[in-house]
C-alpha cells in the first residue's frame, strides 16, 4: 500500500498515511492534538484547518463545511487524504495547546502563570494551594502501602528440616504478614529454588496485601535496599494527572498532567462509548489512547526524575469515572449508556501492568478504584475518601465535582447519596462559540459598563484574547445579567443602543472583544445560544444538589461543608457562582476547594491499605440516585434555568 505524506504546520511534523484517511486521524498519528469536541462527526467546526498545498476530498457536503470553506478553512475530520501529498496549517484556535491542568505539585506553580497565581491567591483565597506543598498525601492514614518489601531470613533447609521451598517461604511470610492466604505465581515458583539459595535463605519479597490476601509480586535474593515507587493516576474525561510516590517515605516525588488523548473521539464519555462501540477498531483505539496518555505522563515524570527507572515503579493506582475505568481496562462500555444504564463492573480486578501495556515494572499490580454506578465512578469514590465524608463522625457535607459529568455526593458517615447531573462541558469551554479551556489568552474576568456597554476584561497571562474560559463565562453571565443585557431567562435585549449587540448567524450575540484586539482576528462574542447552554449547565448542577437534598429531606442549611472538586473548581469564583445560581447561597466559608480530590484519594489509597479498605467500604455505602426516573430532577432543572433561580427566596443574598 503506497502512502501520502501530510505535513502539519506550524510544528512542521510530517507523517505518512494511507489515502482515504481523514486529517484529524492523520494529526493523531503525528501526535498533534486538534480540538474535536464532537468526536469527528463534522458537527462542531472546532477542528478547522487550512490546506496550504495539495487537495483533499470532502467526506460529505455540509452547511458547516461550506461556511468554513468561504473563510478558506476545512474541517480536519471531514477532509480525506486523496492522491496528493498535503501541507496543512493548524490555526491557533483549533490547536489543543497546553492548557492549565492544575497539578498541585511539590514545586507549585508549574503551568500556572504568575498572574493567575496572584489572582488565585488574592481573589479566590486559594491559600490552600500553597499548603499542598506540605500537605501530607496520607491525609491522616497510616503509611502502609499497597505494595512493600518484606525481608526474610528463613531457616536453612537440612535433613532435619526438609520442608519444600514453597512451604518454607509461606510459613515465614505468615509470621510477617498475618495473612493466611498467600499467593505465589508460577513464574516466581519456577525460579524459587535458585533465588532463595543465592544468599543462603535470605530473601526480599515484594508483596501486595489487600483484604487479608497477600500476593507475592517479586522475590529477590538478599536484603538489599530496593527502591520502591508507585504511581497514582487520576483518569479524567478531559484531564489526566499522575503522581509519582515514594512508597517507603510516603511522599509525593513529582506530578505531571496532560489532557486525555481520547478527546479526539469526543469531549464527553457518551461520544467515546459510541466511538468505541460503533467504529471498527474503536474499542482498541479508545483503549490505546488512554494507555498512551498515561505512558506519556510516566515518561515525563521519569525524565524529570533521572534517578528513578521504569522498573522501580512497582504498583499503580487509578481513579476515573466508570466509563474511563472500562475503557482503561478494555472492558466493553456499551451498556453504560443504554437503559437501564448498567456498567459491566463496579469493582475491578487487579491486573498486571504488562497486560495493559503500561510502561512501569511489567509485574506491577494495577488497582482501579471501585465505582458506584454508570455515571458515578471511582474518581468520585476517591474524592469521597479524601473528604472523609464516609467516616463515622462526619458532618453532613456535599461534594461536587463541577465538570462534564457533574457528579455529587451528599451525606455523613453511614449514609451517602450520589448522582450525576450531566452538566456538560460548557464550563470547560466546550459547546460555547468562543469557549476554551483555561489557558494563555483566555478571558477569565470582565467588566461591562452599565451605561455604555463597553467591556474591559482580563486574560490569563495577559495574552491577547483567544476566547473565554469557564470562569470568564460565569463572570460574564453575572455581568450580562447585572447590566440588563440579558433577562433572568437568558434572553438578549436586542434593542440596546450599542453596536456590540447584534444579530449573528445563529441569533442575538454580544461582542466582548472586537477582532482588532484579539489574537484570532475575529470578534469574540457570547451568543444567546451560549447563554442558554450555560444556563442548562448551571441549572443541571443546582438541580442535582436540590434533588439529593429532596431525596433525604434536608435543607441547604443542613450542609456543614461544600467540597468543590475538579480541575475547574480551582478557578471558580464562589460569589459569582452563587450569583448566577450555580451553587447554593451559603456562607462562602462553608465552601472548601479540594482540587483534584480524585488524584489525592488515589495517592492515599496507594500509600495506605487502610485507606484502600475504606474506599471499598465507601463505594459499597453510596446510594445512586437515578435522575432520569420520576420528575423531581426535571422539575428542579426547569426551575434552575433562571438567573439565579425561579424561587428567588433560595438566594436571599443575591442581587442581580
Amino acid at each position, binding site marked *: 500500500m503506497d502512502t501520502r505524506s501530510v505535513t502539519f504546520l506550524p510544528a512542521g511534523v510530517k507523517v505518512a498515511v494511507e489515502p482515504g484517511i481523514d486529517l484529524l486521524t492523520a494529526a493523531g498519528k503525528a501526535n498533534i492534538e486538534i480540538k474535536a469536541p464532537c468526536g469527528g462527526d463534522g458537527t462542531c467546526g472546532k477542528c478547522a484547518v487550512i490546506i496550504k498545498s495539495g487537495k483533499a476530498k470532502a467526506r460529505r457536503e455540509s452547511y458547516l463545511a461550506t461556511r468554513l470553506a468561504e473563510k478558506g478553512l476545512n474541517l480536519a475530520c471531514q477532509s480525506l487524504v486523496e492522491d496528493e501529498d498535503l501541507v496543512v496549517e493548524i490555526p491557533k484556535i483549533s490547536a489543543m495547546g497546553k492548557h492549565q491542568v492544575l497539578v498541585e505539585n511539590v514545586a507549585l506553580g508549574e503551568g500556572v502563570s504568575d498572574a493567575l497565581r496572584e489572582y488565585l491567591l488574592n481573589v479566590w483565597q486559594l491559600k490552600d494551594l500553597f499548603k499542598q506543598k506540605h500537605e501530607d498525601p496520607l491525609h491522616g492514614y497510616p503509611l502502609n502501602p499497597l505494595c512493600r518489601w518484606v525481608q526474610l531470613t528463613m531457616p536453612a533447609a537440612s535433613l532435619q528440616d526438609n520442608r519444600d521451598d514453597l512451604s518454607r517461604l509461606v510459613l515465614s511470610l505468615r509470621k510477617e504478614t498475618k495473612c493466611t492466604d498467600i499467593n505465589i505465581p508460577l513464574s516466581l515458583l519456577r525460579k524459587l529454588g535458585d533465588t532463595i539459595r543465592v544468599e543462603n535463605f535470605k530473601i526480599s519479597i515484594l508483596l501486595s496485601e489487600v483484604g487479608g490476601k497477600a500476593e507475592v509480586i517479586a522475590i529477590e535474593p538478599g536484603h538489599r535496599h530496593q527502591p520502591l515507587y508507585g504511581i497514582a493516576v487520576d483518569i479524567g474525561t478531559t484531564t489526566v494527572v499522575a503522581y509519582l510516590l515514594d512508597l517507603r517515605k510516603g511522599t509525593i516525588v513529582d506530578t505531571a498532567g496532560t489532557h486525555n488523548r481520547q478527546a479526539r473521539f469526543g469531549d464527553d464519555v457518551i461520544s467515546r462509548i459510541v466511538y468505541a462501540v460503533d467504529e471498527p477498531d474503536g474499542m482498541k483505539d479508545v483503549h490505546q489512547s488512554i494507555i498512551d496518555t498515561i505512558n506519556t505522563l510516566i515518561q515525563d515524570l521519569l525524565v524529570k526524575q533521572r534517578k528513578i527507572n521504569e522498573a522501580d515503579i512497582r504498583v499503580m493506582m487509578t481513579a476515573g469515572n466508570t466509563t474511563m475505568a472500562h475503557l482503561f481496562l478494555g472492558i466493553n462500555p456499551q451498556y453504560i449508556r443504554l437503559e437501564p444504564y448498567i456498567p459491566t463492573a463496579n469493582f475491578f480486578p487487579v491486573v498486571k501492568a504488562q497486560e495493559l501495556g503500561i510502561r512501569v515494572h511489567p509485574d506491577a499490580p494495577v488497582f482501579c478504584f471501585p465505582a458506584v454506578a454508570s455515571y458515578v465512578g471511582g474518581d468520585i469514590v476517591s474524592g469521597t475518601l479524601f473528604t472523609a465524608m464516609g467516616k463515622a463522625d462526619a458532618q453532613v457535607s456535599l461534594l461536587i465535582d463541577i465538570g462534564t459529568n457533574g457528579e455529587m455526593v451528599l451525606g455523613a458517615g453511614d449514609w451517602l447519596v450520589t448522582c450525576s447531573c450531566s452538566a456538560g462541558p460548557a464550563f470547560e469551554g466546550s459547546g460555547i462559540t468562543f469557549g476554551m479551556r483555561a489557558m494563555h489568552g483566555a478571558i477569565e474576568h470582565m467588566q461591562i459598563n452599565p451605561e455604555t456597554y463597553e467591556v474591559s476584561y482580563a486574560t490569563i497571562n495577559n495574552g491577547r484574547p483567544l476566547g473565554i474560559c469557564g470562569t470568564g463565562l460565569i463572570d460574564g453571565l453575572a455581568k450580562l445579567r447585572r447590566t440588563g443585557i440579558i*433577562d*433572568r*431567562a437568558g*434572553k438578549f435585549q436586542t434593542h440596546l443602543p450599542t453596536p456590540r449587540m447584534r444579530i449573528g448567524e445563529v441569533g442575538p450575540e454580544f461582542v466582548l472583544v472586537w477582532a482588532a484586539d484579539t489574537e484570532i482576528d475575529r470578534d469574540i462574542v457570547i451568543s444567546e445560544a451560549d447563554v442558554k447552554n450555560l444556563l442548562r449547565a448551571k441549572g443541571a448542577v443546582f438541580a442535582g444538589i436540590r434533588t439529593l437534598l429532596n431525596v433525604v429531606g434536608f435543607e441547604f442549611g443542613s450542609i456543614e461543608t461544600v467540597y468543590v472538586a475538579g480541575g475547574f473548581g480551582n478557578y471558580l469564583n464562589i460569589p459569582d457562582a452563587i450569583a448566577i445560581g450555580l451553587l447554593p447561597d451559603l456562607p462562602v466559608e462553608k465552601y472548601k476547594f479540594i482540587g483534584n480530590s480524585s488524584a489525592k484519594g488515589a495517592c492515599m489509597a496507594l500509600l495506605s491499605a487502610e485507606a484502600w479498605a475504606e474506599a471499598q467500604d465507601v463505594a459499597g455505602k453510596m446510594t445512586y440516585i437515578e435522575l432520569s426516573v420520576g420528575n423531581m430532577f426535571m*422539575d428542579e432543572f*426547569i*426551575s434552575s*434555568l*433562571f438567573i439565579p433561580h*425561579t*424561587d*428567588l427566596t433560595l438566594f436571599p443574598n443575591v442581587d442581580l
Partner: protein
Amino acid sequence: MATNILKEKYSSKINTVTIGATKEQGGTRTSTVTVGGDASAPFLHYEGEIPLKPVAALEIQDIAPTDWDPILQKVYAEVSGDPVTWAKKAVEFGADLIYLKLAGSHPDNGDKSPEECAKIVKDVLAAVGVPLIVVGSGVEEKDNAVWPVVAEAAAGENLVIGSAQQEKYKSLAAACMVYKHKLLALSPLDINICKQLNILITEMGLPAESILIDPSTAALGYGIEYTYSILERGRLGALQGDKMLAMPVLLQIGYEAWRSKEAIAPEEDFPNWGNQEERAILWEAVTAAGLLQGGANIAVLRHPESLRLLKKNSEELMVKPEL
C-alpha cells in the same frame, strides 16, 4: 365520638383581580367581573374564604372561523361574520365576559393592521357592556405591533390582553403598564416557566395584581391530568405564600375541547359514542368542570350550552356546606 374537622391553615391567598371598568372607574362597562381571592383549596369553604365564584367567557373572533365544527358554526351562523353582533349574541347566552381573538391580524389570515384591530375592539366595547379579554394571533412580530395600539385605543377599559410568553412579554407588559390593562401570561404546562414569566413581567414594573395566568389547557382525554396537577400545584404554592403563583387562572377550554376527536367526530363514524352534539357539549363542559376542581377562575368556552352547564356547576359549588 365527636369528629374533628381537619382544616389546613394557609398563610396567603389568590390575588383579587377586577376586569373591566364602569363609567365611575374611567371606562364604559356596565358590569365588571372580579375573580380570585380564594384562601383555600377549590371550594373548601370551611377552610378558608372563597369570596368569588368562577366565571365563564365565550370566545368570539373578528373573522368568521373556518375551522370550527359545524355544530358550533350552526349556533353562531347568523353572527359569526361580525364580531359586534357575535358579541351581543354571546352576552345573550349569558357570558360573564367576552373573549375576543383577533384571528384576522394573522399575516396568513387577512393581516389586519393594528388600527383595524383597535377599531374592532372599540366596536365590540361599544356593542356590549361586559368586560373584554383580547388576544392576538400568536405571531410575535404582529402581536408586538397590535398590542400597543389596541391598549391605547381601549385605555381606561381595563381589558385583559394576551398572551405574553417567556420569549415575548416586553411589549405587552409595557402596553399594559402604560394603559392600565390586565395581562394574560401564557406558559407551556410548566409551573416553573409559569412562575419565571411572572417574575420577568413584574420585574418590568407591572404589578402582580395585574396578571392572570394561562397555564395552557389540555382537554379531557388529551392530558387534562397535567393541567389539573399544575393548577393544584399553583394553588397550593400561592396559598403557602408564593406571590408569583398567586394570580387567578384563565383556561382556554373551548379551543382545546373542540379539537378533540370525541367532540368533532360525527355519530355515523362512531355509533358507540352516541349523539355528537351532546357528546361535544359534554366534552367541553366536563373538561371545564374537572378543571374547576383544580382551581380555575375564568373558563373560556365556545358552546352556549357548555356555558350554561358550567355556570350552574359553579353556582352549586359556591354553596357553603353546614358543618
